[in-house]
């Protein structure tokens, strides 16, 4: 039987529409929730918009909040292309953050370029190692990566927590954190007195690299082949185990950059429990951006804006910052259930297929 030949949008445009629709739908539902709760949605969204984009500083804040999400989004997307569900971004970024902080502290006194490079690379290596470990357990022992990754998340983040509660704890500090890294070794700020650092450029550079990887290189093709159809890839002489381990190492490095840029950008030290779940939110960012690196730049910006605007929304419209979590949750729900959204898009477009 021939396949149904329905008029098709270019795949990219179609996915863009679906993602937009998911966002629109969740904002609509959030509006209803606010109405029911007795808030003024217009005022709330206005405040949020203002808080996210209302001034140079607001924009800087939005961008800075989007940076870690961008990296964890890339991490999830790259693993997905290779057919691996990397839910271990959280553990990967914690170990990476710890490694980069330790490296920067240990090399204190050396030239800035050396220390910054070494500590970024140390972070990527640590994240990559955690990723590769999960990949190896999946490939060699055939244990589901989701279970392994979730357990590794606990092990790694508790290990990092132990280190800054014990051996690496800053002297005379009440909280669990490492010593401060000298500000010469941190990312430069793009806008003075904001948290937006040049790590943003690193994110954009990686988006281009990832795009190029999957578009034009054999390595990217091999990863996609394994993700798409492992058996066919094996028939074509691609080693599934090596690719799985490799793609998880790559994914771990990218997730690691989320930790590195927080330590060397925002905080200047490793603080226990600094990540509010970047590794997990990255999954939503990647899926909403349909695993396209530029799509992920956009969706991480959206999630960053929601975070950045929530404070303003809270004190102007008196809506709890938790409303942002409601909106994020709804976006994930609609992205995870494409059928609902596709119904919506079809209605809107006035197209009906039998």
């Amino acid at each position, binding site marked *: *039987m*021939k*396949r*149904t*030949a*329905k*008029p098709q949008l270019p795949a990219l445009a179609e996915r863009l529409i679906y993602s937009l629709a998911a966002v629109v739908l969740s904002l609509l539902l959030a509006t209803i929730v606010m109405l029911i709760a007795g808030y003024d949605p217009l005022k709330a969204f206005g405040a949020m918009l203002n808080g996210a984009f209302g001034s140079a500083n607001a924009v800087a804040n939005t961008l800075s909040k989007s940076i870690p999400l961008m990296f964890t989004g890339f991490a999830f997307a790259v693993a997905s292309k290779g057919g691996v569900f990397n839910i271990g971004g959280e553990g990967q970024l914690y170990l990476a953050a710890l490694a980069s902080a330790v490296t920067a502290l240990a090399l204190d006194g050396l030239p800035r370029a050396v220390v910054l490079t070494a500590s970024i690379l140390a972070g990527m290596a640590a994240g990559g190692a955690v990723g590769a470990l999960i990949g190896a357990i999946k490939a060699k022992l055939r244990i589901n990566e989701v279970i392994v990754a979730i357990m590794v998340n606990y092990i790694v983040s508790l290990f990092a927590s132990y280190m800054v509660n014990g051996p690496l704890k800053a002297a005379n500090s009440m909280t669990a954190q490492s010593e401060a890294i000298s500000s010469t070794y941190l990312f430069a700020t793009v806008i003075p007195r904001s948290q937006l650092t040049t790590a943003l450029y690193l994110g954009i550079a990686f988006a281009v690299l990832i795009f190029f990887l999957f578009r*034009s*290189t*054999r*390595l990217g*093709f*091999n990863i*996609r*082949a394994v993700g*798409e*159809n492992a*058996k*066919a*890839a*094996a*028939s*074509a*002489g*691609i*080693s599934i185990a090596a690719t799985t381990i490799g793609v998880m190492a790559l994914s771990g490095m990218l997730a690691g950059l989320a930790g590195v840029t927080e330590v060397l950008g925002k905080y200047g030290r490793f603080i226990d429990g600094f990540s509010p779940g970047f590794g997990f939110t990255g999954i939503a960012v990647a899926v909403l951006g349909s695993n396209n690196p530029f799509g992920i730049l956009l969706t991480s910006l959206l999630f960053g804006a929601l975070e950045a605007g929530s404070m303003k929304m809270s004190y102007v419209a008196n809506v709890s910052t938790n409303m942002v979590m409601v909106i994020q949750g709804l976006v994930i729900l609609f992205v995870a259930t494409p059928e609902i959204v596709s119904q919506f898009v079809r209605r809107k477009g006035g197209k009906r*297929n*039998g």
Partner: protein
Amino acid sequence: MRGITKRFGAMTANDHIDFQVEQGEIHCLLGENGAGKSTLMNVLFGLLCPEEGCVEIDGQPISALTPRLAYQLGIGMVHQHFMLVNHLTCLENIILGNEPGKVVIDRKQARARVQALSDQYHFNIDLDAPVSDLSVGMKQRVEILKTLYRGANIIILDEPTAVLTPIEAEQLLSILRDMRTQGKTIIFITHKLKETLDVADRITILRGGKSVALLSAASATPEQLARLMVGHDVVFEIEKPARAQGDVVLRVEDVRLLQNAQSTVSFEVHAGEIFGIAGVEGNGQQQLEEIIMGLTRTKGGRIFYQKTNLLELSLRARRKLRFAYIPSDRLKQALLSHVSLQENFLLGNQYDPQYVRRGLIQKKALRENTLRMMREFDVRAVSAQQSAGSLSGGNQQKFVLAREVSKQPQFVLACQPVRGLDIGAIKYVHNVLIRLRSEGAAILLISAELSDIFQLSDTIGVLYKGELMDVRKAGAFDNESISLLMAGRKEAQADETNR
């Protein structure tokens, strides 16, 4: 069914088709892939709603047909892909969705009814076996029994023999005849001529979404059916020029295919020879395929390709030998269905400097070669950017052939190369294999279709339970002797094995 029209977007799958079936007949719906057979039957079963036309049962026009209503009207359908729950037993699968008893399932009553039906039509099903343990043929019987249990009088079978071995197919046909004798009406969708003539009372032929003929099977000839199906004359015989054999290209020594096989397998394939492996599926063919390609490891034995022992090489090193490999399941093993044809062409060629240099894919060369091979092999697609999954089965297979042949292989491993293809595509595949043979390639052909084996092979080996029963020149076998070997009987000891 009258004037049924069903469109999918710009394509008209059914164009004003009239289709009439009489009580108690086996009616074959014959046509090539894409002729609209399944669409028409999905309309009858209520899965699709036609734009025009109406369905009448016993003279009553039926509107708003749904599968549920179809069942109530006594229409049952067995799909190409079985809809069974693997973990449940046969009995549980059969009564699923229609369990007797109000709250608690009345197993006793269910068993009695199902058993009675099974006996009535000689199905020989073990009702307590979990479905996952059954052979494909048995699963199909469970599906048929399920429709009977639901009270179907008209049973639609969508390409039922496509998944069966010749023996299973023969058994199915005899069950169908039995059911007809007991008054059931059967609609049999197929593109195979032989079984159509074997089993049908009347035949409706579809071509390009139109009904082109309704004939009585008694007066039909294969040539006539083929012409009506394809729209022009079809030559059945293929020309196979005589060719002297060259050197040994592939030598298999002492390879154990199945764990419990009593002996190992050894044979040689020469340049310019097609070595056919005949046998009912599941007798070690898959293992042989995977061992040669390195997808399964094996202990003991050696496989020499020219002078190198394949079993000592890595997957990647094997691929560098540039074998052409046509796997038995093209969608699972040869294609990335959501990926463009161009990139599918790269699959297996990704270490060829023509296509990838210093890790970078050479897009231009890749696209040009893909398009050239697609033209040469008559792969019908809109562009090289189209996804492989959007092609029809025949075009997918031609695409795989094009890719593999473009490697100018010395050795070709062709597994079930014509499965699920229509006449035109089968003939095409056969011709390509013959051409490769003329060019001096050594070809190992593994096929469950005897017609393949006989038409193509120079040498034939028969595989049964992981053992080679016999290897002879093609002319030394006839239909009967090969069938006996396929069933595990060597002439002298015909009755020792039971099957």
